[in-house]
């Protein structure tokens, strides 16, 4: 419910060409699109260009979307098409090279599977990014940067116990936030929860 209201705000702002909404959507999807494209074209700089291009094409169709989920589908479809073009051009240029990862029908399967992977990871990423300030900082330090509790405590000038508390809080909020969203997203917290039990 809360989530849907927030989505509504973003869509309306996006239709009205408000920069804040454009940026929100960009932050929501840019990194997952880069990741997706890099899986397909195996080149980081190229991948970032593809994500950029996909986003520009979204901006051409600002009034065409009623739901955030449609925007997500659109962005991944466009990125996938750009990747296909990329490979076609590359093949034309360097015909004879056998290492093509993505082309033709067998490669459609590959692209399809990568789409599922990137979209699933995007859901988890979005929830991590939506954590409140200190929670997010602690969470990312542990989870993304692999730092220890005492290092984080020293770096942030907080007590080790506070780091542990924030970690627990992050998990709690993640689960709450996910529950409010589509129930399908709730699993992300479980994945993340199991990270912690292993750390």
């Amino acid at each position, binding site marked *: 419910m809360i989530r849907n209201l*927030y989505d509504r705000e973003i869509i309306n702002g996006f239709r009205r060409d408000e920069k804040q909404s*454009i940026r929100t959507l960009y932050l929501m999807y*840019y990194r997952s699109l880069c990741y997706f494209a890099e899986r397909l074209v195996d080149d980081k700089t190229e991948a970032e260009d593809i994500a950029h291009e996909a986003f520009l094409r979204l*901006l051409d169709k600002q009034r065409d979307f009623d739901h955030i989920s449609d925007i997500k589908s659109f962005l991944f479809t466009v990125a996938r098409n750009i990747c296909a073009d990329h490979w076609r051009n590359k093949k034309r240029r360097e015909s004879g090279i056998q290492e093509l990862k993505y082309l033709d029908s067998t490669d459609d399967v590959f692209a399809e599977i990568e789409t599922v992977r990137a979209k699933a990871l995007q859901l988890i990423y979005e929830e991590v990014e939506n954590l*409140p300030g200190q929670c997010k900082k602690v969470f990312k330090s542990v989870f993304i940067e692999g730092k220890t509790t005492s290092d984080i405590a020293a770096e942030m*000038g907080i007590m080790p116990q506070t780091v542990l*508390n924030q970690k627990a809080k992050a998990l709690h909020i993640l689960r709450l936030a996910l529950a409010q969203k589509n129930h399908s997203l709730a699993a992300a917290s*479980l994945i993340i929860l199991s990270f912690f039990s292993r750390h």
Partner: protein
Amino acid sequence: MLNIKIEEIIINFIDGTITSEEACFLNKWIQESEINKQLFEELTHPELVSKELQKFYTYDEELGWNRIETELAHRKKIKQTNWKYWTAAACMLGVIVTTVVIFFKGNDNIIENKVATVVKNDVEAPQSKRAFIQLANGETVALSSVEKGILTEQGRVNIVKNSEGQIVYQGHATETVFNTLVNPRGGTVVSLVLNDGTRVWLNSESSLKYPNSFSGNERIVEITGEAYFEVAKDPAKKFIVKGNGVITEVFGTHFNVNTYNDEAETKVTLQEGSVRVLKGASSGFLKPGQRAAFSNKSDQMAIDNTDVDKVLAWVYGDFNFDDETLPDIMRQLARWYDLEVSFEGKPPADLYSGIISRKSSLVTVLQILNAAEGIKYSIEGKKIKIERTK
């Protein structure tokens, strides 16, 4: 056929919320191919997911955003040029263009009418910044007046609004003057970066008095209403917040001060670091996660543990009610939506809980809280009247 995507079903599976229909679908999907099976295994393997998610953070999103911004600015220019072209074309194709305009106008009216019926008896969330800065010389500067760039100059200090809408003080002052940032009722939350790098968020119906530059060996600011501080570390210069007679002394830390006059207590909540609070004869030190509550009628003080995220919900753009009475809730709503609240008879004693976006309209908030049950409310303009029905 299932109207749900495979990645969502996989996540439902991990979560344990998968339906039997979805499980059947997922099973079929896994059997379909070796590559499907492999992906399923990878996505349900925590360490692998962690490793992949780490890659997300290797992409520079600020750099990418700069490229988008450049493109947006470029497009705006092109649009304006196109507009000139179309104006010229319109003169030649007068009749056709007129028809088109009427057609679109008609449509717009329908939309507007619809919107009007929906929001007739509702109050929208604050949309724009109402806040302004009162300069030492009496002049005021509205924050909404500039999209980005220099708001005003004060001696050698520039008051600048950055791309995130935050107000920043740059430069060193030759003489210290005091400015006041005022955020009236019904204004969105504003944030400010002081000359020493300290960040302050100001809730609606609040104000912050601060110098354009901190001189001497103390950094002193005064507030009314509610503010959240992320103080820049400077062991040589104490940072002091004064509000409602309560003094909070800090050295570099994150904390919230609530001094609303219509509340029974003035509250200081510490998120990070350490602060000393005092009022009259009472004083004490706070640890992270603790809150000091001072009675507004005496010097009495109590320190207890609190849920910091609930206290800071306003900074994150939410209302966070936890077993609160309707009068308590309505006081918070009144500041945000700029309301006049009145209760017909004795206010209900029921308790309400919920986390709701501050961007929601008033009626939406009330509906989510389910406050409509057992009470009746009527909204007229900015006045809301509440009555018990049971």
